[in-house]
């Protein structure tokens, strides 16, 4: 951890008096579990007057690399954007490609995509809630959440061979069909998961110290959420009822019956709680999808190895665990895209950090960062 004082200057504060403002650099690597994020914090005693995130430590030039890869070769790259939610990034990209190349995905593949993405949503939220808990010192909650995540990751390994970067959703369908007994294990998981969520709710969210740490911290009003382009649980925690699965629906989501949890206060507590309740809803969707899933092909017929869509552009977005994940592809008719642009929800949500952290103490800064749930693979690309 590099914590250095950048400067110590006397500034005139809002009351007209002279205060000594400390500018501290909270280094790119720190034990908080969110990745490489540097925050330059201006402190007036204990209170943060300004917090500026500096990003780019995980920038790998993925969008530029995509320009030199064929459409199928880009899929593993999308895994590494939001590495906590690889299935989403795969899916968003594949939807954009399918829109561009006019590929129709078979039903079974759509259902499989929905199932794995809802599983991914649960896994991602478990990571988010667990990390927030670890930040506030509740290590047991972290372990409990990761236990749930571990079951899902094991299911993913059975399905596609990888625990973290799946390369599963491909243009035209998915890569593998479910193995024997996988759906039964998944059904058992969703049943057990609800009990685990109840336990976590009582252990962490019911705890008086958690409430003291999370309530009233990083309050985001609904107008600010919409104005600053927040999406996902960050926006829904402030009461903005916007979920792409319902309001700009795609794939087979219209066939499922589920609710969209929203918070009311817009503080870190509500955001975390929204994530918890989304896990219940995801369990519902998975159960319905498993029941409704038809037999059939898992990949569209006639999709060539080398996809060469006609020149044009396409944008498609899905509701990822972090918010509205969009992919914009410009094709010039060749097998390699001219430009691929990822609209990263974590990037847009992270921009809220200066707004939310102002006026709170340094300890609250960590809580706010955790509640925004950034994954720096996605933020920096």
């Amino acid at each position, binding site marked *: *951890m590099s914590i250095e004082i950048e400067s110590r200057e006397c500034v005139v504060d809002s009351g007209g008096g002279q205060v000594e403002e400390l500018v501290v650099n*909270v280094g790119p690597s720190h034990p908080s579990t969110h990745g490489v994020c540097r925050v330059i914090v201006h402190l007036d005693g204990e209170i943060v007057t300004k917090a500026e995130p500096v990003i780019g430590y995980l920038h790998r030039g993925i969008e530029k690399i995509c320009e030199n890869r064929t459409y199928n070769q880009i899929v593993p790259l999308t895994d590494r954007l939001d590495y906590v939610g690889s299935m989403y990034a795969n899916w968003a990209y594949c939807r954009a490609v399918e829109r561009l190349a006019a590929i129709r995905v078979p039903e079974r593949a759509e259902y499989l995509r929905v199932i794995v993405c809802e599983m991914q949503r649960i896994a991602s939220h478990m990571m988010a809630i667990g990390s927030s808990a670890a930040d506030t010192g509740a290590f*047991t909650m972290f372990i*409990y959440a990761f236990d749930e995540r571990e079951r899902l990751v094991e299911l993913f390994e059975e399905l596609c061979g990888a625990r973290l970067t799946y390369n599963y959703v491909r243009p035209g369908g998915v890569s593998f069909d479910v193995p024997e007994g996988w759906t039964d294990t998944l059904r058992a998981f969703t049943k057990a998961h609800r009990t685990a969520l109840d336990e976590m709710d009582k252990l962490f969210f019911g*705890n008086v110290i958690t409430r003291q740490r999370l309530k009233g911290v990083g309050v985001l009003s609904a107008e600010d959420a919409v104005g600053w382009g927040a999406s996902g649980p960050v926006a829904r925690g402030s009461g903005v009822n916007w979920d792409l699965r319902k309001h700009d629906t795609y794939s087979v989501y219209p066939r499922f019956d589920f609710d969209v949890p929203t918070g009311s206060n817009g503080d870190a507590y509500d955001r975390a709680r929204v994530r918890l309740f989304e896990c219940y809803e995801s369990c519902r969707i998975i159960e319905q999808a498993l029941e409704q899933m038809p037999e059939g092909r898992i990949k569209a017929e006639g999709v060539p190895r080398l996809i060469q869509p006609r020149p044009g552009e396409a944008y498609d977005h899905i509701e990822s665990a972090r918010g509205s994940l969009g992919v914009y592809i410009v094709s010039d008719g060749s097998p390699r895209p001219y430009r691929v642009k990822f609209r990263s929800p974590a990037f847009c949500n992270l921009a809220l950090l200066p707004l939310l952290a102002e006026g709170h103490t340094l*300890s609250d*800064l960590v809580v706010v960062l955790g509640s925004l749930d950034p994954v720096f693979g996605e933020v920096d690309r």
Partner: protein
Amino acid sequence: MSTFLWGAFFGVAAGLVIAIGALFGVWGERKVSARIQMRIGPNTAGPFGLLQTLADTVKLVLKEDVTPVRADAGVFKFAPFLVFTPIAMGMAVIPFARGWAPLDSSVGMLFYLAVPSLSAIGTLIGGWSSRNTFATIGGIRGAAQMVSYELPRTLSVLSVVLLAGTMRPVAVMDAWQWWWIPLTLLGFLVYFISSIAEVNRGPFDLPEAESELVAGYFADYTGIRWAIFMMSEYGGVVAASLFGAAFFLGGFRLLPGVLGIVAYLLLAVLLIVAMMWVKWTFPRMRPDQLMTTAWKVLTPMALVQLAIVGVVIPWL
């Protein structure tokens, strides 16, 4: 033997007791926390992982002794000992059997409350001498926390002293009656919570786990110096549990003879496990919430306890 030799003997003995207490404390912590987290904990080094701490200590001793270049070397090296020694001294006045304490002092209760508080200075100078902004902030917060929680702890122990009418620990244990337990239950609660805060543990460990965000007050300490900080923390836990089990819960007066001493030690172990339980269940409190709890919640509760005891005393 001359008093100097007796003193040296007891000094070494106290150090050993704390070291062994820390050994079992760390092992217990790892096992208890593991079970709470649905894991097993160390089980490879020795039966039930009992030798794990020994292995870790050997590793720590073999580490390079690094002193940061900018740090104030003398104070930096002295600070861990200033944290460790007062806690070891504080254990001297705790009675272990009827009529016997290692140091039978007529102001023993005051001794126990006052002397271990000196370790707050060690915390402060450890952080300060590291010449590392956040270590300093951690040290200052640690010292402020330890000083604040002195008050409710002292007031709650005072209620027991009032009931006994003496500050001599051996005499307090002689005077102990079973109905003191329900009478001083509130005081016990205050004492328990304050003790957790005193040793920088559990929900009150912001000074040391400031490392969630930045470096804690002993971040720049490596190897055996860090181990001394840890030993003093567990020493504090053991001392607080022994003290609480003796004076609030009856200790060796609960059962006659040797059974009493066994019961006492079991009660103390129960309290130690309870402290670990609390640590692994609750998140950490923010510094301002910590201070609010000390001054606005625990101190009034301790005063209420004193009032209750004060009302009952004329009837004794």
